């Protein structure tokens, strides 16, 4: 097991560097020159050169990349060109907003998904099963910015229950979490349902039934517990999906998270910020995948053995 973990973690290193090269090259293909935004009208070519040199934009690309990477590895994400603050500070300000949104959305979709999946599995084939599963499936196929807008219209404008935008207090989290969470419910529900139906047919469950244990107790205490294993694995793999959703949803709800920061910096051609935000988002996805794989290995002896 330890060998597998080590190998799996070490595999991240080349992937990390490859991802950073991809990000770096994409950034340098972007049109527009961030220095233009800084230059004052009538400034001399010398001033332009000084600024270009200050941000290291005059050096060869390979050198720029190596400089960036060595700085990143020592925790220095550079300085934002337009916003002028350390990128690390901007990211640190934005990250809590995205983490709270992503984390809660993940929890919400998990709880709702497990509940729906359990109900659907318990009444398999009934109209309840069909209706619930169809409902969450439908919910997962709607464009999330559209659901967000409709929810603003209903809950903020018509009913006045929640704030329209921003990030002040837990109230402003409700709609964004619902928007992302609803989209993620379908997969969790589907996995839970299948895993439960699968477990229901296992010998130990049949034995419990034969012993006369109450069906509800069996369902919740024994079947669900077993079925949760694949659900947990799926969760870690969902991190990338949640983050992607957060980008759009943060813009709709004007939430100052990493997604909003990314879009704003992209529009302002603030390269260092775009670069850092993308790297952090990609790292989150990689770590999520790693966690998913490790969890899977930890919980499934067959899988573990096949690798060692």
């Amino acid at each position, binding site marked *: 097991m330890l060998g597998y973990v080590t190998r799996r973690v070490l595999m991240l290193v080349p992937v990390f560097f490859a991802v950073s090269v991809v990000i770096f090259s994409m950034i340098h293909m972007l049109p527009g020159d961030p220095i233009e935004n800084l230059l004052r009208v009538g400034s001399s070519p010398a001033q332009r050169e000084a600024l270009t040199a200050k941000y290291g934009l005059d050096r060869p690309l390979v050198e720029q990349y190596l400089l960036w990477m060595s700085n990143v590895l020592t925790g220095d994400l550079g300085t934002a060109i337009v916003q002028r603050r350390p990128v690390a500070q901007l990211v640190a300000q934005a990250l809590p907003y995205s983490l709270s949104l992503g984390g809660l959305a993940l929890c919400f979709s998990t709880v709702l998904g497990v509940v729906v999946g359990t109900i659907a599995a318990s009444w398999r084939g009934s109209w309840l099963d069909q209706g619930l599963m169809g409902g969450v499936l439908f919910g997962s196929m709607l464009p999330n910015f559209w659901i967000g807008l409709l929810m603003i219209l209903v809950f903020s404008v018509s009913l006045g229950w929640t704030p*329209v935008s921003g990030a002040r207090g837990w109230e402003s989290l409700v709609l964004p979490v619902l928007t992302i969470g609803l989209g993620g419910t379908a997969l969790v529900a589907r996995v839970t349902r299948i895993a439960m139906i699968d477990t229901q047919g296992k010998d130990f469950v049949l034995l419990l039934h034969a012993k006369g244990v109450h069906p509800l107790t069996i369902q919740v205490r024994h079947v669900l517990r077993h079925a949760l294993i694949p659900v947990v694995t799926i969760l870690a793999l969902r991190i990338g999906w949640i983050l992607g959703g957060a980008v759009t949803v943060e813009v709709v709800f004007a939430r100052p998270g990493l997604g909003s920061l990314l879009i704003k910096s992209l529009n302002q051609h603030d390269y260092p910020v775009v670069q850092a935000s993308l790297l952090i988002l990609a790292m989150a996805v990689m770590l999520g995948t790693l966690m998913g794989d490790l969890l899977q290995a930890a919980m499934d002896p067959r899988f573990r053995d096949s690798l060692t």
Partner: protein
Amino acid sequence: MKYNLSTLLATTAIGSCLALSAFAQEVTVVMASNEVGATSYNPVASSMQSVGTYLIYDRLIAKDENLAYVPQLAESWVEADDGMAWTFTLKPGVTFHNGTPFAAQTVVDWLALYPGTENAYLFDAVERAEVVSDLEVRFVMKRPDPNLLYNLSTVFASIPDPAAYAEAGEDYGVFDAVGTGPFRLESFEIGQQTVLVRNDDYAWGPGDATGKPAKIERLTLREIAESSTAFLELKTGGVDMLLNVPTDFVGEVEGASDLSILQLAGQDLVYMPMNVKQAPFDDIKVREGVAFAINQQEILDAVFAGMGKVADGFLISSLPESKIAEEFRISYNPERANKALDDAGWVMGTDGVRTKDGTRLSVKLWTQSDSFFRRLSEVVQAQMKAVGVEAELVTFDSAAIRDQYKTGAHQVAVRSYLWDNADILEWFFSATRPFYPNVSMLDDPKAEALKDAAMTGAKNSAEREAAFVAYHEYINSQFPYAPIYEPVQIIGYNAERLVMPEVLHAPRFNTLGFLELDVKE
């Protein structure tokens, strides 16, 4: 023990009352959408400042609602008969937020910050400033400048503490901003919000302001680019005031029982610059055709619900220099538009787009990403199509579009400016500032001569006015732009929470407005 306990309780009670009242005195305001994205509170070296600059800093001179000059940090001023010197007497007892006293030497040091910045033109006519006495400063002029008082009253003539300014270097105004104004900067997140706290020492308000500090203790200025979001925030109580309400929502605000509207004369002008260096707009006839294709009245009525004015020149209508001769005004005239395009050799095709030698009359229309511009541009696009000009919309982020103008690739754009002085003509059409601000790329010797006469040739206000009228008329005769619309300032506020000043002796809602703004108990 008992005594002690009750004292403690009483103290706690008072403490919580104070905390409560502190909360009650907080006001949250959404900035005008065209001020969103200002990157610093450095008034000296930037061409974009927000309302916050008016509150953190003071200027020597302020303006009242009739655009007359009134004292702010300067108590009085005298111009020499030949216009070659100005002496300003300063208010006593003024201090910066950091405790540094404000005196004649401060003004001298402050003026020295301008050379080399993009606002240097403000004091271009000033040879030097010299200390006469502790509270008297004299500006020695290179030439008479009838516009000096105006320049001193603009937001770019806000006075920071020169020592603090020098110390912070390039980052001045991002983390710290030290002024003498009614509010101190507590925090600033670019593009998000600015938190200001009351300057309790403030006793030098503009004009006949009472000499008292502001009534509210804390002011949060939020930046929300999307005006519909801002409006919904006001409606749902998330914010207390919007500094500009889109005309679309005025009816809604008026309909809501707790919201009210305050209308002030506008200072913006929306226009459409055409790049005279890019085909097809290098042909004056094409420019004329497109300029007369814009139906200002339709835009006013349909897009802006009839609020504001149609524009027929480059200056806002409250300026005397906007009164140009009838023949130089540009307003919708489809016959003239079609004739000019016909004369230019562009023949109307069967698909409604003109062609010339097999080329379609198709242009790229640049616009900004916020909904105001996107929507307006779609109407302009349709109006151009009506005379056979096909326009393809190209949208840029409002913060990035200036950078794009500097490439010179633009053909025609929809944009706006906010200024209340005729010298804006020079800013946007001077041949010395091509790409941006001279988006039209106008470079014409006659225009330059008229510009020089207007900017530096006038000895008094009357001469200056006449010179600017001539410059304005000549610019219009070259059709480097089409005028579109002159908005009004519409402020929306929560009337159940806020007490607005009864009369606002200022052209805009800034220093004086927030000084007198109060919260209902």
